[in-house]
């Protein structure tokens, strides 16, 4: 080494450079400002012992820190801040940041405390559940980039979070709902007190003046309930009426308005009953149950939206003018981007130059890097691992795969299963019937005892509110779905839980489902003059384009630099791949593709792949795939539940049978092409079975779509995901059995809820019609019935 080495990173210090640092009174020389900043941070943290104890020189600080700071400084740009920063006062700015790396409450505490002691930071709140931080700062004293840099130095990563997104809107709505609930709660509590006094007053003889005063007080307290808290019911009822439908909000509004008008009339003239207590209690409980149900439902959306945060906000665009940092919002398809190792892809794209491994774990659950070559597609949010890639943007924002997954989830939540649709229709009819009955009962009482007619009509309207009926299904489904999501099972279609409960047969695809899906090349047998190594090289080159799990072992055993260029590659799902290498067409796959007769397979448990050219077979490869550790557990559990089990495999029968024997599955069929699998599945369905299919890979897409319920392993390719009803994100097979159990519980809870709601109404209607229920009791009964439904559903969580 001809010059002094940097104290921090060990690189030689260029001439004429002076970046000193003083550690425990000893000065040390550093090579650059980046190292100086890192070293200063370490010393200021009281962590100088690091330099005594370290066994390895740091790799990064030297070059990446200035680059990162430069990137962070872009967030100070007003144009870029526009999308996620709010001005909350003169010089005060507020931004929501998503913090990566929050693992426990201590992280939240560390971030909050540390940021708060910075001058200019006014408030910091980190949400433990959603990993979002809301920060308010004074722009005269501190820049956003400094705050972000501080967060990075603590070891976390902060990304700006677009405040205009759906989540922010949802948060706003949530706060509004809470305010309504608070108003209704405060009023209900107080009005109830007055009501107790009034009821007691009737017994003990309260002076008319005092009673009148209490009534006026109740009226005043009910005003905010009627005009603020109950607003959602008015708008829901109005929009239902406008579209010429009836929903449960219509009788709710009729009850609220008539009770209020009647009570105001009686208060004014100082005669008859007042129902202010019933009004506020009714509103409070309705709002409460709805909020409860809504929160349960939105949990899973939030989980999905945190996926979206993974796409970065900034990108390096490469143009003729050179490289520039631009916000992702400004990208358009066709732009050329440079993605460095360690960075996430800001958009969907196609690799234009470079070769690298990419971590797509966030999408597929598969931590193994996927190799990307020129022409491969990359997905926004996945992380480039090995070397820089230049990509051409094909999809941004809404059009990325990541966004479509989130849309799928939203869709599933919006999609109602058959039973829930039925409930909606029934509660529509029920409302009609209810209004009719109320009218008849009202007229009858008018004729018999006109004084009580109003009170009884009111009680009837309130007591029969079909809330329990409407909440029965969604509450159970939301609770079941969110329970499963926490266990790593994602429901993507609304009907999945309902159908899953009726499943009688579970069909497995073998590769990637029961097995790890990472077969290893066991043996190569050269059949012609080409030697084994050359055959492997050819095979790997051909398999570059294939997404089939059997392609990986070939790619794994040949160095990437040895791959031969392949032209005119054709991928025929279920059969294999062909391509032209150095002017000759080669085939790899099972023999139908190559068009040659083969010797029968010898060893059980081995998958055989053949390499051929136009005229003859060149080599035979033996691949073995290991069973998943937990496959046996799942099979045993399913058998104990009395499920029929089948294996439909694209591999040959011997292999399928071998796996089947190990697991104890009798019905094993091998050598099936997608069309054969489909036919087999349809035969099962024709025999009256409800089939759940577990699959993985392009091979299974049509079959998955045909099964009543389909489940794709999290590591499956995109096509399989898009057509499956459930995605096993956690890749733990026993969760499938658990999901089946949960689906049954969900259905039974749904049935209990329906039974309860119907029974309640059957009893309540005649009792109220006969005049045995006063309005406040009706409100209590109604609320209790819907609360029971929701609480019953929450047992699933």
């Amino acid at each position, binding site marked *: 080494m001809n010059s002094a080495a940097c104290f921090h990173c060990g690189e030689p210090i260029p001439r004429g450079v002076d970046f000193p640092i003083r550690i425990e009174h000893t000065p040390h020389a550093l090579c650059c400002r980046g190292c100086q900043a890192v070293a200063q941070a370490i010393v*200021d943290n009281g962590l100088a012992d690091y330099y005594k104890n370290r066994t390895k020189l740091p790799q990064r600080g030297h070059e990446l820190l200035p680059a990162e700071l430069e990137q962070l400084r872009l967030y100070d740009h007003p144009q870029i801040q526009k999308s996620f920063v709010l001005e909350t006062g003169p010089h005060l700015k507020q931004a929501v940041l998503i913090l990566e790396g929050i693992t426990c*409450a201590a992280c*939240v505490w560390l971030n909050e405390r540390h940021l708060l*002691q910075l001058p200019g930071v006014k408030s910091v709140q980190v949400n433990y*559940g959603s990993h979002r931080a*809301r920060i308010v700062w004074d722009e005269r004293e501190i820049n956003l980039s*400094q705050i972000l840099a501080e967060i990075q130095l603590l070891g976390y990563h902060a990304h700006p979070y677009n405040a205009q997104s759906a989540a922010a809107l949802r948060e706003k709505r949530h706060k509004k709902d*809470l*305010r309504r609930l608070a108003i209704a709660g405060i009023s209900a509590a107080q009005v109830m007190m007055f009501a107790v006094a009034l009821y007691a007053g009737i017994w003990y003889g309260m002076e008319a003046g005092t009673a009148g005063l209490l009534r006026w007080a109740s009226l005043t307290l009910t005003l905010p309930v009627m005009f603020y808290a109950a607003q959602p019911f008015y708008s829901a009822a109005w929009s239902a009426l406008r579209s010429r439908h009836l929903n449960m909000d219509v009788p709710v509004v009729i009850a609220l308005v008539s009770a209020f008008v009647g009570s105001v009339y009686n208060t004014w003239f100082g005669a008859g009953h007042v129902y202010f207590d019933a009004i506020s209690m009714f509103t409070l409980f309705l709002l409460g149950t709805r909020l409860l149900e809504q929160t349960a439902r939105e949990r899973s959306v939030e989980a999905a939206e945190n996926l979206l945060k993974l796409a970065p906000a900034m990108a390096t665009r490469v143009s003729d003018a050179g490289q520039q940092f631009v916000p992702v919002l400004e990208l358009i398809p066709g732009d050329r981007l440079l993605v460095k190792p360690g960075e996430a892809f800001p958009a969907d794209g196609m690799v234009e130059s470079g070769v690298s491994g990419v971590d797509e774990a966030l999408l597929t659950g598969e931590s193994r890097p996927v190799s990307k070559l020129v022409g491969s597609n990359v997905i926004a949010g996945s992380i480039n691992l090995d070397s820089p890639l230049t990509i051409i943007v094909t999809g941004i924002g809404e059009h990325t795969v990541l966004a479509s997954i989130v849309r799928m989830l939203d869709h599933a939540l919006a999609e109602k299963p058959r039973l829930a649709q039925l409930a909606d229709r029934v509660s529509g009819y029920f409302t009609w019937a209810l209004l009719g009955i109320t009218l008849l009962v009202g007229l009858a009482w008018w004729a018999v005892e006109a004084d009580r007619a109003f009170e009884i009509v009111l009680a009837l309207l309130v007591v029969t509110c079909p809330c329990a009926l409407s909440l029965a299904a969604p509450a159970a489904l939301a609770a079941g779905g969110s329970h499963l999501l926490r266990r790593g099972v994602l429901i993507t279609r609304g009907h999945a839980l309902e159908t899953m409960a009726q499943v009688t047969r579970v069909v497995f695809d073998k590769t990637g489902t029961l097995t790890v899906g990472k077969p290893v090349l066991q043996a190569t047998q050269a059949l012609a003059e080409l030697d084994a190594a050359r055959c492997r090289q050819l095979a790997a080159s051909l398999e570059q384009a294939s997404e089939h799990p059997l392609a990986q072992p070939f790619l794994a055993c040949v160095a990437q630099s040895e791959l031969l260029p392949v032209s005119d590659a054709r991928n025929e799902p279920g059969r294999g791949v062909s391509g032209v290498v150095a002017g000759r067409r080669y085939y790899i796959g099972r023999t139908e593709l190559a068009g040659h007769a083969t010797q029968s397979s010898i060893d059980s448990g081995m998958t055989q792949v053949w390499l051929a050219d136009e005229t003859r077979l060149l080599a035979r490869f033996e691949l073995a795939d290991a069973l998943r550790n937990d496959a046996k557990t799942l099979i045993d559990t399913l058998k104990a539940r009395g499920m029929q089990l089948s294996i439909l495999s694209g591999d040959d029968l011997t292999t399928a049978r071998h796996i089947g024997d190990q697991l104890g599955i009798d019905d094993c069929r091998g050598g099936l092409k997608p069309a054969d699998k489909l036919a087999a599945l349809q035969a099962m369905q024709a025999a009256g079975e409800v089939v759940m299919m577990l699959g993985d890979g392009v091979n299974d897409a049509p079959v998955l779509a045909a099964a009543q319920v389909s489940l794709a392993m999290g590591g499956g390719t995109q096509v399989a995901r898009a057509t499956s009803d459930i995605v096993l994100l956690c890749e733990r097979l026993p969760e499938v059995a658990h999901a089946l159990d949960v689906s049954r519980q969900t259905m039974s809870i749904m049935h209990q809820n329906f039974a309860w709601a119907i029974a309640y109404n059957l009893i309540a209607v005649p009792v109220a019609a006969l005049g045995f229920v006063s309005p406040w009791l009706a409100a209590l009964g109604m609320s209790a019935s819907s609360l029971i439904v929701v609480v019953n559903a929450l047992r699933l969580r």
Partner: protein
Amino acid sequence: MTSTLIFLLGLTGVFLLLIGLGIFWAIKSGQFEDMEGPSQRILMDDDDPLLPRRVVDADALKKAP
């Protein structure tokens, strides 16, 4: 009697107003957004000497190439 009642009702009104404002403030400042964090946070000490102080040199940030 009635005047006492009116006074008490007025007092109730004032209290309710205060309660309402308090809850609105709590909602606005996001105290109902996270129901788990605070229960954990109370267990942490604020005066831990290991808590990092200001670490980024503002000048370095401005001058970095």
